[in-house]
């Protein structure tokens, strides 16, 4: 089969310093589903100081501790223009929690210190003392109900250039005011949802793969994947306390 030779390159942003909440699950799901859809996934780990690879089809990043965010800050700004170019040309990306915030315009710390983001997403984040923790369900036009787990003290507000990923049904989401969760621009999705996000929301995973495959090869034909566990895992997760 010639299809099996079609490579999809998935760039894992800062696996060493930004990996604290199990967001590796997103990489694993993209890797396996790309394979099951008939592609050859290639994972590239990108850490501060590495050469940024030439061909990238999907970009994925996760959350980190404050110390991890400090370590990647300068490097992120160095590769920021490259990432912006990729985003402008519709490269699919998924960034969770810490990197979601840093993909925005800025992050204001609790002592009012401003940390500049790389501005791919038109969002602003302000640190609060209260930590928003617990199971979350959101409703998205594009992906239906999306479920996950949030754990953040930064509250994010969307400007004109960004659309929310969905509306919160249970939990808090971006902030304690407007019931939005996540942000989207072009094919870039930012979200606070861990869980990991993609295993129980494979529609998002397949959408990312479809965008990458269509952009690179002109078309996408989904494979036949056994997703029989997904509705069960979702159903049980939604029954659990916040």
């Amino acid at each position, binding site marked *: 089969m010639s299809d099996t030779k079609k490579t999809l390159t998935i760039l894992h942003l800062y*696996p*060493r310093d930004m*990996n*604290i*909440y*199990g*967001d*590796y*699950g997103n990489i*694993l*799901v993209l890797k*396996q589903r790309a394979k099951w859809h008939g592609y050859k996934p290639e994972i590239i*780990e990108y*850490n501060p100081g590495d050469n940024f690879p030439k061909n990238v089809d999907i970009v994925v990043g996760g959350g980190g*501790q*404050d*110390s991890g965010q400090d370590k990647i800050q300068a490097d992120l700004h160095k590769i920021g223009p490259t990432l912006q170019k990729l985003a402008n040309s519709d490269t699919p990306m998924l960034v969770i929690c810490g990197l979601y915030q840093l993909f925005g315009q800025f992050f204001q710390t609790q002592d009012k210190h401003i940390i500049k983001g790389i501005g791919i997403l038109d969002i602003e984040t302000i640190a609060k003392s209260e*930590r928003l*923790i*617990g*199971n979350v369900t959101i409703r998205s036009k594009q992906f239906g109900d999306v479920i996950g*787990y949030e*754990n953040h003290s930064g509250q994010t507000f969307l400007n004109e250039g960004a659309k929310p990923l969905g509306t919160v049904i249970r939990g808090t989401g971006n902030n304690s005011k407007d019931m939005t969760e996540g942000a989207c621009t072009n094919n870039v999705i930012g979200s606070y949802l*861990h*869980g*990991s996000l993609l*295993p*129980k929301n494979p529609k998002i995973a397949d959408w990312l793969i479809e965008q990458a495959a269509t952009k690179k090869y002109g078309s996408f034909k989904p494979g036949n994947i*056994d997703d029989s*566990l*997904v509705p*069960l*895992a979702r*159903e*049980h*997760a939604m029954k*659990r*306390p916040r």
Partner: protein
Amino acid sequence: MTKIHSVLVGKAVRHVARLRGGSGSALPGLVVEKLDKSFVTKALAKLPHGTVIISGTNGKTTTTKMVVELLESQGLRVFTNKTGSNFSRGVAAALLSEMNARGKLKADIAVLEMDEAHAVHLAEKVKPRYTLLLNVMRDQLDRFGEIDHTAKLLHRVATATTNGVIVNRDDSRLLSEKFIGDLTADVSSFGVSNRLLQQFPSDDDMRSLSIKKRESLLNNNDTCLESIDGNSIKLTYDGKTKKVDLKVNGLYNMLNAVGAFALCREIMGEKINEAKMLDALSKVTPAFGRGEDIVVDGLPCQLILVKNPGGFRLGLQSFDPKGYAVMIAINDNYADGRDMSWLWDVEFDTLQPSGVSEISGSRGYDMALRLQYNDVSFLHVDTDLKRGLKNFLQSAEGKPKRIYCTYTAMMALRRELGKIADVKEVK
């Protein structure tokens, strides 16, 4: 109110709580603390050998049990918080049950297992003579927040310690200059040889491909697990090498044994009876549910507590799956942590050849999804633990069994197993 009164009231409440069928752990402790705020501090201050705190993310309960047994081999009478109620109310309750009505504790030394947050409160009040710090790993981040914050809590415990702090030198956060640089107590360490280090990956190495060589910064006063051959280990300390045949199995339990030995060497100093302590070391066993063997139909059924990625990964590496039927039970109650993200930081490759028989617990289907993405086959999922266990015992009949389980799942499974097998009561 005088102290004798609070002891008597506490004992009475404990008695009533037990009659009502509770374990009698938290309520009497709460009552006595309300009556006498410095109850715990005052009781512990009278002990001739003071207080020892054992903290860290993984291994506290087993290590504390081992330390108690090693110190008893030296003729010391040891007070400990056996129930695993590792907070001050639990300590107050344990004190009550060990005291006579006059409030006198028949012990020479207190050895207390404490989680990071409670360890700080107790340490700053009680000023422990010795503290053993096992590791700082990701654990229930939904409750404690960041791992660096956890390290800061442990640093406060170490700062409040007067005589000696013993750290796991293979834990980069504990052996950092930042952590030990400003301590007034003597610092000593325990760990594994570089050869064994590959088998003990830390959380920091989780997503990077090569494991860095970690060298001890401390040349003296180090107790090292040099090599492992079956259940036999080589231990080096003080310029000596000793071979010890252990009863405990599993890498992490062996490392806990080494940590316990390092701590007890420090506590005893020159008064140590080394032969007796090594003999006691060879006899220590893990705490309940931490590699504990329960005999079901003449075959072992091993319970392995897993509560965070580091512990689960070590558990999977510590026990050879060959020949064993495996069940995994994942609950998401408050005590287990509600966030399932951690399952995605555990690699299940070692289970690929033989697969998993049964998956259970409130998040059984999250676990099943995790295995699907790891190409590990499984026979059956039932989120109900009673039914899950029943299925497992049937499908695994005639085979030794192993159950990886989160905390509340472990407690429920022990209760169920207690109906068909001899399960030690946890007091």
